[in-house]
Protein backbone atom coordinates (compact mmCIF):
# COMPACT_ATOMS: atom_id res chain seq x y z
CA UNK A 1 0.00 0.00 0.00
CA UNK A 2 3.00 2.26 -0.30
CA UNK A 3 1.49 4.05 -3.26
CA UNK A 4 -0.93 5.75 -0.90
CA UNK A 5 1.78 7.32 1.23
CA UNK A 6 2.35 11.00 0.65
CA UNK A 7 6.12 11.06 0.88
CA UNK A 8 7.09 9.81 -2.57
CA UNK A 9 6.44 13.18 -4.21
CA UNK A 10 8.61 16.21 -3.69
CA UNK A 11 5.58 18.48 -3.20
CA UNK A 12 3.76 18.75 0.10
CA UNK A 13 0.41 16.90 0.16
CA UNK A 14 -1.73 20.01 0.33
CA UNK A 15 0.01 21.36 -2.75
CA UNK A 16 -0.61 18.08 -4.57
CA UNK A 17 -4.27 18.46 -3.69
CA UNK A 18 -4.31 21.98 -5.02
CA UNK A 19 -2.82 20.87 -8.33
CA UNK A 20 -5.42 18.12 -8.56
CA UNK A 21 -8.26 20.50 -7.82
CA UNK A 22 -7.09 22.99 -10.40
CA UNK A 23 -6.68 20.19 -12.93
CA UNK A 24 -10.23 19.09 -12.35
CA UNK A 25 -11.45 22.68 -12.52
CA UNK A 26 -9.65 23.04 -15.83
CA UNK A 27 -11.56 20.07 -17.23
CA UNK A 28 -14.83 21.47 -15.92
CA UNK A 29 -14.09 24.77 -17.63
CA UNK A 30 -13.22 22.97 -20.87
CA UNK A 31 -16.57 21.15 -20.83
CA UNK A 32 -18.52 24.32 -20.11
CA UNK A 33 -16.56 26.13 -22.81
CA UNK A 34 -17.51 23.39 -25.27
CA UNK A 35 -21.18 23.86 -24.52
CA UNK A 36 -20.98 27.64 -24.74
CA UNK A 37 -18.95 27.20 -27.91
CA UNK A 38 -21.73 25.05 -29.33
CA UNK A 39 -24.15 27.93 -28.91
CA UNK A 40 -21.78 30.54 -30.31
CA UNK A 41 -20.87 28.42 -33.33
CA UNK A 42 -24.56 27.83 -34.09
CA UNK A 43 -25.34 31.53 -33.85
CA UNK A 44 -22.34 32.37 -35.96
CA UNK A 45 -23.54 30.03 -38.70
CA UNK A 46 -27.13 31.20 -38.49
CA UNK A 47 -26.34 34.90 -38.33
CA UNK A 48 -26.35 35.58 -42.11
CA UNK A 49 -29.85 34.11 -42.38
CA UNK A 50 -31.19 36.16 -39.49
CA UNK A 51 -29.60 39.28 -40.93
CA UNK A 52 -30.73 38.77 -44.51
CA UNK A 53 -34.18 37.37 -43.91
CA UNK A 54 -35.01 39.30 -40.78
CA UNK A 55 -38.42 38.83 -39.33
CA UNK A 56 -39.85 37.21 -42.45
CA UNK A 57 -37.93 34.07 -41.48
CA UNK A 58 -40.15 33.61 -38.44
CA UNK A 59 -43.49 34.36 -40.05
CA UNK A 60 -42.93 33.00 -43.54
CA UNK A 61 -45.06 30.03 -44.55
CA UNK A 62 -43.11 29.13 -47.67
CA UNK A 63 -39.78 27.33 -47.92
CA UNK A 64 -38.41 27.50 -51.45
CA UNK A 65 -34.62 27.19 -51.29
CA UNK A 66 -34.11 27.53 -55.04
CA UNK A 67 -35.86 30.92 -55.03
CA UNK A 68 -34.30 32.15 -51.83
CA UNK A 69 -37.52 32.15 -49.84
CA UNK A 70 -37.16 30.77 -46.34
CA UNK A 71 -39.97 30.67 -43.78
CA UNK A 72 -39.78 28.47 -40.73
CA UNK A 73 -43.49 28.15 -39.92
CA UNK A 74 -44.19 24.92 -41.86
CA UNK A 75 -41.47 23.17 -39.87
CA UNK A 76 -42.60 24.57 -36.53
CA UNK A 77 -46.11 23.40 -37.37
CA UNK A 78 -44.92 19.94 -38.41
CA UNK A 79 -42.70 19.56 -35.36
CA UNK A 80 -45.31 20.58 -32.84
CA UNK A 81 -48.16 18.71 -34.48
CA UNK A 82 -46.27 15.41 -34.65
CA UNK A 83 -44.91 15.80 -31.13
CA UNK A 84 -48.29 16.67 -29.61
CA UNK A 85 -49.99 13.82 -31.43
CA UNK A 86 -47.26 11.51 -30.19
CA UNK A 87 -47.80 12.70 -26.61
CA UNK A 88 -51.55 12.31 -27.05
CA UNK A 89 -51.07 8.69 -28.07
CA UNK A 90 -48.13 7.77 -25.85
CA UNK A 91 -49.15 9.69 -22.72
CA UNK A 92 -52.19 7.64 -21.66
CA UNK A 93 -50.52 4.36 -22.61
CA UNK A 94 -47.34 5.16 -20.67
CA UNK A 95 -49.05 6.48 -17.58
CA UNK A 96 -51.44 3.53 -17.53
CA UNK A 97 -48.68 1.00 -17.93
CA UNK A 98 -46.59 2.74 -15.26
CA UNK A 99 -49.60 2.42 -12.93
CA UNK A 100 -50.06 -1.19 -13.96
CA UNK A 101 -46.40 -2.07 -13.45
CA UNK A 102 -45.93 -0.33 -10.13
CA UNK A 103 -49.30 -0.96 -8.46
CA UNK A 104 -51.23 -3.86 -9.89
CA UNK A 105 -49.30 -6.51 -11.69
CA UNK A 106 -47.32 -9.33 -10.06
CA UNK A 107 -43.56 -8.89 -9.84
CA UNK A 108 -42.67 -11.56 -12.38
CA UNK A 109 -44.92 -10.12 -15.06
CA UNK A 110 -43.61 -6.64 -14.23
CA UNK A 111 -40.03 -7.65 -14.85
CA UNK A 112 -41.09 -9.28 -18.12
CA UNK A 113 -42.88 -6.15 -19.34
CA UNK A 114 -39.96 -4.10 -18.10
CA UNK A 115 -37.62 -6.10 -20.31
CA UNK A 116 -39.77 -5.16 -23.30
CA UNK A 117 -39.66 -1.51 -22.31
CA UNK A 118 -35.89 -1.61 -22.00
CA UNK A 119 -35.50 -3.24 -25.40
CA UNK A 120 -37.81 -0.61 -26.85
CA UNK A 121 -35.66 2.11 -25.29
CA UNK A 122 -32.46 0.73 -26.75
CA UNK A 123 -33.66 0.37 -30.35
CA UNK A 124 -32.07 3.17 -32.37
CA UNK A 125 -34.11 5.73 -34.25
CA UNK A 126 -32.93 4.49 -37.64
CA UNK A 127 -34.44 1.03 -37.07
CA UNK A 128 -37.77 2.54 -36.12
CA UNK A 129 -37.53 4.50 -39.34
CA UNK A 130 -36.72 1.40 -41.38
CA UNK A 131 -39.59 -0.54 -39.86
CA UNK A 132 -41.93 2.40 -40.28
CA UNK A 133 -41.00 2.76 -43.93
CA UNK A 134 -41.52 -0.89 -44.85
CA UNK A 135 -44.26 -1.94 -42.46
CA UNK A 136 -46.11 0.94 -40.83
CA UNK A 137 -46.42 3.16 -43.91
CA UNK A 138 -47.96 0.45 -46.14
CA UNK A 139 -50.24 -0.60 -43.27
CA UNK A 140 -51.27 3.02 -42.85
CA UNK A 141 -52.01 3.39 -46.55
CA UNK A 142 -53.89 0.14 -47.04
CA UNK A 143 -55.62 -0.51 -43.73
CA UNK A 144 -55.68 2.34 -41.25
CA UNK A 145 -56.39 5.32 -43.45
CA UNK A 146 -59.33 3.78 -45.39
CA UNK A 147 -60.82 2.83 -42.03
CA UNK A 148 -60.37 6.32 -40.61
CA UNK A 149 -61.72 7.90 -43.79
CA UNK A 150 -64.83 5.79 -43.87
CA UNK A 151 -65.67 6.42 -40.21
CA UNK A 152 -64.31 9.89 -39.52
CA UNK A 153 -64.01 11.21 -43.08
CA UNK A 154 -66.21 14.22 -42.28
CA UNK A 155 -63.45 15.64 -40.07
CA UNK A 156 -60.92 17.93 -41.77
CA UNK A 157 -58.05 15.93 -40.23
CA UNK A 158 -58.76 12.93 -42.40
CA UNK A 159 -59.07 14.58 -45.79
CA UNK A 160 -57.18 13.66 -48.90
CA UNK A 161 -55.55 10.43 -49.89
CA UNK A 162 -52.89 8.78 -47.79
CA UNK A 163 -49.55 7.92 -49.35
CA UNK A 164 -48.51 5.97 -46.31
CA UNK A 165 -45.91 8.48 -45.23
CA UNK A 166 -47.24 11.58 -43.53
CA UNK A 167 -47.92 13.35 -40.27
CA UNK A 168 -49.94 10.55 -38.66
CA UNK A 169 -47.39 7.82 -39.47
CA UNK A 170 -44.55 9.91 -38.08
CA UNK A 171 -46.57 10.62 -34.93
CA UNK A 172 -47.26 6.93 -34.38
CA UNK A 173 -43.56 6.07 -34.61
CA UNK A 174 -42.69 8.98 -32.32
CA UNK A 175 -45.25 7.76 -29.81
CA UNK A 176 -43.67 4.32 -29.82
CA UNK A 177 -40.25 5.86 -29.30
CA UNK A 178 -41.17 8.03 -26.32
CA UNK A 179 -43.24 5.43 -24.46
CA UNK A 180 -40.23 3.97 -22.61
CA UNK A 181 -39.00 7.41 -21.55
CA UNK A 182 -42.34 8.47 -20.08
CA UNK A 183 -43.08 5.08 -18.51
CA UNK A 184 -39.80 4.83 -16.66
CA UNK A 185 -39.96 8.39 -15.31
CA UNK A 186 -43.59 7.91 -14.23
CA UNK A 187 -42.60 4.73 -12.39
CA UNK A 188 -39.85 6.57 -10.54
CA UNK A 189 -42.31 9.25 -9.53
CA UNK A 190 -44.98 6.78 -8.40
CA UNK A 191 -42.41 4.91 -6.30
CA UNK A 192 -42.12 7.95 -4.05
CA UNK A 193 -45.78 7.80 -2.99
CA UNK A 194 -45.76 6.48 0.60
CA UNK A 195 -47.39 3.13 1.19
CA UNK A 196 -49.37 4.46 4.18
CA UNK A 197 -51.21 6.82 1.90
CA UNK A 198 -52.43 3.97 -0.29
CA UNK A 199 -53.33 1.84 2.70
CA UNK A 200 -55.23 4.74 4.23
CA UNK A 201 -57.28 5.15 1.07
CA UNK A 202 -58.08 1.43 0.97
CA UNK A 203 -58.92 1.42 4.69
CA UNK A 204 -61.47 4.15 4.11
CA UNK A 205 -63.27 1.84 1.74
CA UNK A 206 -62.02 3.11 -1.59
CA UNK A 207 -61.98 0.72 -4.52
CA UNK A 208 -58.61 0.20 -6.13
CA UNK A 209 -59.43 2.63 -8.87
CA UNK A 210 -60.35 5.29 -6.34
CA UNK A 211 -57.22 4.48 -4.34
CA UNK A 212 -55.03 4.92 -7.42
CA UNK A 213 -56.77 8.15 -8.29
CA UNK A 214 -56.64 9.63 -4.79
CA UNK A 215 -53.37 8.33 -3.42
CA UNK A 216 -51.18 7.82 -6.47
CA UNK A 217 -52.25 9.97 -9.40
CA UNK A 218 -53.17 13.20 -7.66
CA UNK A 219 -50.02 13.60 -5.55
CA UNK A 220 -47.78 12.76 -8.50
CA UNK A 221 -49.82 14.67 -11.05
CA UNK A 222 -47.31 17.44 -11.74
CA UNK A 223 -44.54 14.87 -11.81
CA UNK A 224 -46.44 13.04 -14.52
CA UNK A 225 -46.81 16.33 -16.40
CA UNK A 226 -43.04 16.76 -16.17
CA UNK A 227 -42.53 13.25 -17.52
CA UNK A 228 -44.84 14.03 -20.44
CA UNK A 229 -42.86 17.18 -21.15
CA UNK A 230 -39.58 15.28 -21.12
CA UNK A 231 -41.15 12.92 -23.63
CA UNK A 232 -42.20 15.95 -25.66
CA UNK A 233 -38.62 17.22 -25.55
CA UNK A 234 -37.39 13.90 -26.93
CA UNK A 235 -40.04 13.88 -29.63
CA UNK A 236 -39.18 17.40 -30.80
CA UNK A 237 -35.56 16.57 -31.49
CA UNK A 238 -36.10 13.12 -32.98
CA UNK A 239 -34.64 13.11 -36.45
CA UNK A 240 -34.10 9.98 -38.43
CA UNK A 241 -37.33 8.07 -37.98
CA UNK A 242 -39.34 11.21 -38.65
CA UNK A 243 -37.24 12.17 -41.67
CA UNK A 244 -37.96 8.77 -43.20
CA UNK A 245 -41.68 8.77 -42.46
CA UNK A 246 -43.04 12.27 -42.69
CA UNK A 247 -42.78 12.65 -46.46
CA UNK A 248 -40.70 15.83 -46.49
CA UNK A 249 -43.01 18.44 -47.89
CA UNK A 250 -42.73 21.90 -46.33
CA UNK A 251 -46.45 22.73 -46.43
CA UNK A 252 -48.97 23.46 -43.73
CA UNK A 253 -52.05 21.35 -44.18
CA UNK A 254 -54.78 20.35 -41.79
CA UNK A 255 -54.99 16.76 -42.98
CA UNK A 256 -53.04 14.25 -40.94
CA UNK A 257 -52.44 12.11 -44.02
CA UNK A 258 -50.56 14.89 -45.78
CA UNK A 259 -46.78 14.72 -46.01
CA UNK A 260 -45.09 17.46 -44.00
CA UNK A 261 -41.68 18.30 -42.57
CA UNK A 262 -40.22 18.93 -39.15
CA UNK A 263 -37.34 21.14 -38.11
CA UNK A 264 -35.03 18.20 -37.48
CA UNK A 265 -36.03 16.34 -40.63
CA UNK A 266 -35.45 19.31 -42.94
CA UNK A 267 -31.95 19.76 -41.52
CA UNK A 268 -31.16 16.08 -42.03
CA UNK A 269 -32.51 16.07 -45.57
CA UNK A 270 -31.18 19.33 -46.96
CA UNK A 271 -28.04 20.23 -45.04
CA UNK A 272 -25.50 18.29 -47.06
CA UNK A 273 -27.14 19.27 -50.36
CA UNK A 274 -27.81 22.95 -49.69
CA UNK A 275 -28.16 25.00 -52.88
CA UNK A 276 -26.73 28.27 -51.59
CA UNK A 277 -24.88 29.65 -48.60
CA UNK A 278 -28.07 31.39 -47.51
CA UNK A 279 -29.79 28.00 -47.58
CA UNK A 280 -27.11 26.51 -45.29
CA UNK A 281 -27.39 29.46 -42.99
CA UNK A 282 -31.19 29.27 -42.91
CA UNK A 283 -30.95 25.59 -41.96
CA UNK A 284 -28.63 26.57 -39.11
CA UNK A 285 -31.18 29.16 -38.06
CA UNK A 286 -33.76 26.37 -37.96
CA UNK A 287 -31.33 24.46 -35.74
CA UNK A 288 -31.03 27.46 -33.43
CA UNK A 289 -34.81 27.69 -33.09
CA UNK A 290 -35.04 23.93 -32.49
CA UNK A 291 -32.29 24.20 -29.88
CA UNK A 292 -34.11 26.89 -27.95
CA UNK A 293 -37.49 25.19 -28.11
CA UNK A 294 -36.09 21.91 -26.82
CA UNK A 295 -34.03 23.77 -24.22
CA UNK A 296 -37.11 25.52 -22.93
CA UNK A 297 -39.16 22.35 -22.73
CA UNK A 298 -36.38 20.35 -21.12
CA UNK A 299 -35.72 23.00 -18.49
CA UNK A 300 -39.42 23.23 -17.63
CA UNK A 301 -39.75 19.46 -17.47
CA UNK A 302 -36.66 19.02 -15.34
CA UNK A 303 -37.77 21.66 -12.88
CA UNK A 304 -41.07 19.84 -12.49
CA UNK A 305 -39.58 16.33 -12.30
CA UNK A 306 -36.79 17.32 -9.91
CA UNK A 307 -39.27 18.51 -7.38
CA UNK A 308 -40.88 15.09 -7.30
CA UNK A 309 -38.24 12.48 -8.04
CA UNK A 310 -36.01 11.29 -5.21
CA UNK A 311 -32.45 12.62 -5.22
CA UNK A 312 -30.76 9.47 -6.42
CA UNK A 313 -32.88 9.24 -9.54
CA UNK A 314 -32.35 12.77 -10.77
CA UNK A 315 -29.75 11.95 -13.34
CA UNK A 316 -32.07 9.66 -15.24
CA UNK A 317 -34.63 12.37 -15.74
Amino acid at each position, binding site marked *: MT*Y*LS*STRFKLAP*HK*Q*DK*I*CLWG*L*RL*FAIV*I*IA*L*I*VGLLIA*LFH*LAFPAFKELGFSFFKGTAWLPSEGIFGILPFVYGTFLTSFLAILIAGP*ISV*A*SALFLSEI*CPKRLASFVNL*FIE*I*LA*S*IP*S*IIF*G*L*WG*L*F*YLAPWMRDTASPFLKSHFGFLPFFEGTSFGVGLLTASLILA*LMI*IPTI*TSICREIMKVVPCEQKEAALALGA*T*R*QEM*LKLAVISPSFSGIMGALMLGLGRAL*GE*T*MAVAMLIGNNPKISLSLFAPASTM*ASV*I*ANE*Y*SEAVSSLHTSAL*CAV*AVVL*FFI*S*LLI*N*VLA*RVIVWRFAPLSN*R*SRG
Partner: protein
Amino acid sequence: MNRLYFRKIKNFIFLGLISLSSLFIIIPLSILLVFLISKGLHGLTWSFITELPKPAGEMGGGIVHALLGTIWILSLASFISIPIGILGGVFLSEYGEGFLANTLRYSADLMTGVPSIVIGIFTYALIVIPMKSFSALAGAIALSLIMLPTIIRSTEEILKLTPKHIRKAALALGVPRWKVIFFIIVKGNISTLFTGIILAISRATGETAPLLFTAFGNMYLSSSWKEPMATLPVQIYNYAISPLENWQNQAWSGALLLIILILILNICARLISGRFDVGHGPKFIFMKLRKKWTSKSF
Protein backbone atom coordinates in the same frame (compact mmCIF):
# COMPACT_ATOMS: atom_id res chain seq x y z
CA MET B 1 -76.33 -0.42 -2.94
CA ASN B 2 -76.78 0.68 -6.49
CA ARG B 3 -73.95 3.17 -6.06
CA LEU B 4 -71.56 0.55 -4.75
CA TYR B 5 -72.36 -1.57 -7.79
CA PHE B 6 -71.54 1.36 -10.03
CA ARG B 7 -68.23 1.95 -8.25
CA LYS B 8 -67.29 -1.68 -8.58
CA ILE B 9 -67.99 -1.65 -12.31
CA LYS B 10 -65.94 1.51 -12.70
CA ASN B 11 -63.10 -0.10 -10.79
CA PHE B 12 -63.28 -3.21 -12.93
CA ILE B 13 -63.22 -1.27 -16.20
CA PHE B 14 -60.37 0.96 -15.03
CA LEU B 15 -58.20 -1.96 -13.93
CA GLY B 16 -58.94 -3.77 -17.17
CA LEU B 17 -57.91 -0.79 -19.27
CA ILE B 18 -54.73 -0.30 -17.29
CA SER B 19 -53.82 -3.95 -17.65
CA LEU B 20 -54.40 -3.81 -21.38
CA SER B 21 -52.14 -0.79 -21.75
CA SER B 22 -48.98 -2.89 -21.60
CA LEU B 23 -50.21 -4.72 -24.69
CA PHE B 24 -49.77 -1.48 -26.62
CA ILE B 25 -46.10 -1.69 -25.76
CA ILE B 26 -45.61 -5.42 -26.27
CA ILE B 27 -47.54 -5.85 -29.54
CA PRO B 28 -45.83 -3.18 -31.70
CA LEU B 29 -42.42 -4.15 -30.35
CA SER B 30 -43.05 -7.82 -31.08
CA ILE B 31 -44.19 -6.99 -34.61
CA LEU B 32 -41.07 -4.89 -35.08
CA LEU B 33 -38.73 -7.60 -33.79
CA VAL B 34 -40.40 -10.38 -35.76
CA PHE B 35 -40.32 -8.25 -38.90
CA LEU B 36 -36.69 -7.36 -38.31
CA ILE B 37 -35.61 -10.95 -37.77
CA SER B 38 -37.65 -12.44 -40.60
CA LYS B 39 -36.38 -9.87 -43.09
CA GLY B 40 -32.84 -9.57 -41.86
CA LEU B 41 -31.83 -13.04 -40.77
CA HIS B 42 -31.38 -14.77 -44.11
CA GLY B 43 -29.13 -11.96 -45.33
CA LEU B 44 -26.97 -12.01 -42.25
CA THR B 45 -24.34 -14.41 -43.51
CA TRP B 46 -20.63 -14.64 -42.98
CA SER B 47 -19.96 -13.01 -46.34
CA PHE B 48 -22.28 -10.14 -45.37
CA ILE B 49 -20.10 -9.16 -42.45
CA THR B 50 -16.76 -9.81 -44.15
CA GLU B 51 -17.19 -8.43 -47.69
CA LEU B 52 -17.23 -4.97 -49.17
CA PRO B 53 -20.36 -3.78 -50.99
CA LYS B 54 -20.74 -4.64 -54.68
CA PRO B 55 -21.52 -1.93 -57.24
CA ALA B 56 -25.18 -0.91 -57.54
CA GLY B 57 -27.31 -3.53 -59.24
CA GLU B 58 -25.09 -6.52 -58.52
CA MET B 59 -26.23 -9.07 -56.01
CA GLY B 60 -24.30 -9.97 -52.89
CA GLY B 61 -21.71 -7.92 -51.13
CA GLY B 62 -21.47 -7.00 -47.50
CA ILE B 63 -20.98 -4.12 -45.14
CA VAL B 64 -17.69 -4.88 -43.45
CA HIS B 65 -16.57 -1.29 -44.08
CA ALA B 66 -19.52 0.10 -42.14
CA LEU B 67 -19.10 -2.38 -39.29
CA LEU B 68 -15.42 -1.58 -38.90
CA GLY B 69 -16.17 2.13 -39.36
CA THR B 70 -18.71 2.07 -36.54
CA ILE B 71 -16.28 0.31 -34.22
CA TRP B 72 -13.44 2.64 -35.20
CA ILE B 73 -15.47 5.83 -34.76
CA LEU B 74 -16.96 4.61 -31.49
CA SER B 75 -13.55 3.81 -30.06
CA LEU B 76 -12.24 7.20 -31.12
CA ALA B 77 -15.28 8.84 -29.51
CA SER B 78 -14.81 6.83 -26.31
CA PHE B 79 -11.14 7.75 -26.29
CA ILE B 80 -12.13 11.42 -26.29
CA SER B 81 -15.14 11.38 -24.01
CA ILE B 82 -14.29 8.81 -21.32
CA PRO B 83 -11.35 10.66 -19.71
CA ILE B 84 -13.05 14.06 -19.92
CA GLY B 85 -16.36 12.66 -18.74
CA ILE B 86 -14.90 10.77 -15.79
CA LEU B 87 -12.81 13.74 -14.68
CA GLY B 88 -15.87 16.00 -14.96
CA GLY B 89 -17.91 13.52 -12.94
CA VAL B 90 -15.17 13.26 -10.32
CA PHE B 91 -15.10 17.03 -10.05
CA LEU B 92 -18.87 17.15 -9.57
CA SER B 93 -18.96 14.44 -6.91
CA GLU B 94 -15.85 15.48 -4.96
CA TYR B 95 -15.89 19.27 -5.32
CA GLY B 96 -19.54 19.52 -6.21
CA GLU B 97 -20.35 22.85 -4.62
CA GLY B 98 -19.83 26.35 -5.82
CA PHE B 99 -20.51 28.26 -8.98
CA LEU B 100 -18.33 26.26 -11.35
CA ALA B 101 -19.71 22.88 -10.31
CA ASN B 102 -23.31 24.05 -10.53
CA THR B 103 -22.70 25.54 -13.96
CA LEU B 104 -21.15 22.29 -15.12
CA ARG B 105 -24.02 20.25 -13.71
CA TYR B 106 -26.69 22.35 -15.36
CA SER B 107 -24.91 22.56 -18.68
CA ALA B 108 -24.41 18.78 -18.72
CA ASP B 109 -28.11 18.36 -18.05
CA LEU B 110 -29.01 20.81 -20.78
CA MET B 111 -26.73 19.02 -23.19
CA THR B 112 -28.59 15.74 -22.74
CA GLY B 113 -31.66 17.57 -24.04
CA VAL B 114 -29.99 19.02 -27.14
CA PRO B 115 -31.25 17.20 -30.25
CA SER B 116 -28.49 15.11 -31.78
CA ILE B 117 -28.93 16.76 -35.16
CA VAL B 118 -27.99 20.11 -33.62
CA ILE B 119 -24.81 18.53 -32.29
CA GLY B 120 -24.17 17.32 -35.83
CA ILE B 121 -24.41 20.87 -37.18
CA PHE B 122 -22.14 22.13 -34.43
CA THR B 123 -19.49 19.55 -35.26
CA TYR B 124 -19.86 20.38 -38.94
CA ALA B 125 -19.08 24.00 -38.16
CA LEU B 126 -16.24 23.14 -35.80
CA ILE B 127 -14.42 20.37 -37.69
CA VAL B 128 -15.73 19.82 -41.20
CA ILE B 129 -15.60 23.43 -42.40
CA PRO B 130 -11.99 24.07 -41.24
CA MET B 131 -10.82 20.67 -42.52
CA LYS B 132 -12.75 21.15 -45.78
CA SER B 133 -13.88 17.52 -45.89
CA PHE B 134 -16.10 15.07 -44.07
CA SER B 135 -14.01 12.98 -41.73
CA ALA B 136 -14.10 10.12 -39.25
CA LEU B 137 -12.70 12.51 -36.67
CA ALA B 138 -15.71 14.81 -37.03
CA GLY B 139 -18.05 11.85 -36.56
CA ALA B 140 -16.15 10.74 -33.48
CA ILE B 141 -16.30 14.21 -31.96
CA ALA B 142 -20.03 14.44 -32.60
CA LEU B 143 -20.58 11.09 -30.88
CA SER B 144 -18.31 12.02 -28.00
CA LEU B 145 -20.35 15.19 -27.44
CA ILE B 146 -23.43 12.98 -27.20
CA MET B 147 -21.76 10.56 -24.79
CA LEU B 148 -20.12 13.21 -22.62
CA PRO B 149 -23.06 14.47 -20.51
CA THR B 150 -24.29 10.92 -19.86
CA ILE B 151 -20.85 9.83 -18.65
CA ILE B 152 -20.44 12.92 -16.46
CA ARG B 153 -23.76 12.49 -14.71
CA SER B 154 -23.54 8.72 -14.27
CA THR B 155 -20.00 9.04 -12.85
CA GLU B 156 -21.18 11.69 -10.42
CA GLU B 157 -24.13 9.64 -9.22
CA ILE B 158 -22.07 6.47 -8.80
CA LEU B 159 -19.20 8.13 -6.93
CA LYS B 160 -21.62 9.91 -4.62
CA LEU B 161 -22.87 6.52 -3.41
CA THR B 162 -19.48 5.72 -1.84
CA PRO B 163 -19.96 5.72 1.93
CA LYS B 164 -18.57 8.79 3.72
CA HIS B 165 -16.62 6.79 6.27
CA ILE B 166 -14.32 5.36 3.60
CA ARG B 167 -13.22 8.84 2.57
CA LYS B 168 -12.82 9.91 6.18
CA ALA B 169 -10.83 6.82 7.12
CA ALA B 170 -8.42 7.32 4.24
CA LEU B 171 -7.99 11.02 4.97
CA ALA B 172 -7.38 10.23 8.64
CA LEU B 173 -4.52 7.97 7.64
CA GLY B 174 -2.79 10.93 6.07
CA VAL B 175 -3.44 10.05 2.44
CA PRO B 176 -3.58 13.14 0.22
CA ARG B 177 -7.05 13.92 -1.00
CA TRP B 178 -6.32 13.38 -4.67
CA LYS B 179 -5.05 9.90 -3.91
CA VAL B 180 -8.17 9.21 -1.90
CA ILE B 181 -10.22 10.26 -4.91
CA PHE B 182 -8.38 8.41 -7.65
CA PHE B 183 -6.96 5.37 -5.89
CA ILE B 184 -9.75 4.58 -3.47
CA ILE B 185 -13.03 6.07 -4.62
CA VAL B 186 -12.67 5.89 -8.40
CA LYS B 187 -10.79 2.61 -8.33
CA GLY B 188 -13.22 0.95 -5.97
CA ASN B 189 -16.15 1.91 -8.16
CA ILE B 190 -14.50 1.23 -11.48
CA SER B 191 -16.78 -1.64 -12.51
CA THR B 192 -19.94 0.36 -11.95
CA LEU B 193 -18.36 3.29 -13.75
CA PHE B 194 -17.77 1.01 -16.72
CA THR B 195 -21.43 0.02 -16.70
CA GLY B 196 -22.40 3.68 -17.11
CA ILE B 197 -19.82 4.17 -19.83
CA ILE B 198 -20.92 1.11 -21.79
CA LEU B 199 -24.53 2.24 -21.63
CA ALA B 200 -23.45 5.63 -22.99
CA ILE B 201 -21.57 3.89 -25.80
CA SER B 202 -24.56 1.72 -26.67
CA ARG B 203 -26.70 4.85 -26.82
CA ALA B 204 -24.21 6.40 -29.24
CA THR B 205 -23.96 3.27 -31.40
CA GLY B 206 -27.35 3.81 -33.00
CA GLU B 207 -27.02 7.55 -33.54
CA THR B 208 -27.48 8.43 -37.18
CA ALA B 209 -28.38 12.09 -37.42
CA PRO B 210 -25.08 13.59 -36.22
CA LEU B 211 -23.09 11.27 -38.50
CA LEU B 212 -24.94 12.24 -41.68
CA PHE B 213 -22.83 15.31 -42.31
CA THR B 214 -19.80 14.59 -40.20
CA ALA B 215 -18.56 11.06 -40.98
CA PHE B 216 -20.76 11.05 -44.12
CA GLY B 217 -19.99 7.54 -45.39
CA ASN B 218 -18.31 5.84 -48.32
CA MET B 219 -18.31 2.49 -50.05
CA TYR B 220 -14.81 1.22 -49.35
CA LEU B 221 -12.64 0.28 -46.44
CA SER B 222 -10.84 3.27 -44.96
CA SER B 223 -8.93 3.65 -41.75
CA SER B 224 -7.82 7.25 -42.00
CA TRP B 225 -9.34 9.66 -39.52
CA LYS B 226 -9.13 12.46 -42.07
CA GLU B 227 -11.41 10.81 -44.63
CA PRO B 228 -15.13 10.14 -44.71
CA MET B 229 -15.98 6.83 -43.11
CA ALA B 230 -19.01 4.57 -43.42
CA THR B 231 -20.93 3.65 -40.29
CA LEU B 232 -23.68 1.08 -39.82
CA PRO B 233 -26.56 3.51 -39.08
CA VAL B 234 -25.76 5.82 -42.00
CA GLN B 235 -25.28 2.83 -44.30
CA ILE B 236 -28.68 1.46 -43.23
CA TYR B 237 -30.24 4.84 -43.95
CA ASN B 238 -28.66 5.09 -47.40
CA TYR B 239 -29.72 1.55 -48.27
CA ALA B 240 -33.23 2.01 -46.87
CA ILE B 241 -34.05 5.04 -49.01
CA SER B 242 -32.50 3.56 -52.16
CA PRO B 243 -34.82 2.02 -54.76
CA LEU B 244 -32.78 -1.19 -55.18
CA GLU B 245 -34.32 -4.26 -53.61
CA ASN B 246 -30.96 -5.86 -52.91
CA TRP B 247 -29.88 -2.81 -50.93
CA GLN B 248 -33.17 -2.65 -49.05
CA ASN B 249 -32.69 -6.25 -47.96
CA GLN B 250 -29.17 -5.41 -46.90
CA ALA B 251 -30.57 -2.53 -44.84
CA TRP B 252 -32.61 -5.07 -42.87
CA SER B 253 -29.62 -7.32 -42.29
CA GLY B 254 -27.58 -4.29 -41.28
CA ALA B 255 -30.31 -3.24 -38.86
CA LEU B 256 -30.30 -6.71 -37.32
CA LEU B 257 -26.52 -6.52 -36.99
CA LEU B 258 -26.81 -3.10 -35.32
CA ILE B 259 -29.40 -4.36 -32.83
CA ILE B 260 -27.19 -7.35 -32.02
CA LEU B 261 -24.25 -5.02 -31.46
CA ILE B 262 -26.28 -2.84 -29.09
CA LEU B 263 -27.69 -5.88 -27.32
CA ILE B 264 -24.19 -7.24 -26.74
CA LEU B 265 -23.10 -3.90 -25.27
CA ASN B 266 -26.13 -3.81 -22.97
CA ILE B 267 -25.57 -7.37 -21.82
CA CYS B 268 -21.91 -6.55 -21.15
CA ALA B 269 -23.00 -3.62 -19.00
CA ARG B 270 -25.38 -5.87 -17.08
CA LEU B 271 -22.76 -8.56 -16.57
CA ILE B 272 -20.16 -6.12 -15.33
CA SER B 273 -22.46 -4.46 -12.83
CA GLY B 274 -23.94 -7.77 -11.70
CA ARG B 275 -20.66 -9.62 -11.35
CA PHE B 276 -18.60 -7.21 -9.34
CA ASP B 277 -20.56 -5.59 -6.60
CA VAL B 278 -18.81 -2.64 -5.04
CA GLY B 279 -16.54 -3.78 -2.24
CA HIS B 280 -16.19 -7.41 -3.29
CA GLY B 281 -15.11 -7.87 -6.88
CA PRO B 282 -12.71 -5.02 -7.53
CA LYS B 283 -10.61 -5.85 -4.51
CA PHE B 284 -9.76 -9.26 -5.86
CA ILE B 285 -8.90 -8.02 -9.32
CA PHE B 286 -6.89 -5.07 -8.20
CA MET B 287 -4.81 -6.96 -5.68
CA LYS B 288 -2.66 -8.10 -8.59
CA LEU B 289 -2.53 -4.66 -10.13
CA ARG B 290 -1.70 -3.17 -6.78
CA LYS B 291 1.31 -5.39 -6.37
CA LYS B 292 2.50 -4.37 -9.80
CA TRP B 293 1.97 -0.69 -9.10
CA THR B 294 3.57 -0.67 -5.70
CA SER B 295 6.73 -2.17 -7.06
CA LYS B 296 7.01 0.33 -9.91
CA SER B 297 5.72 3.82 -9.92
CA PHE B 298 4.58 4.60 -6.43
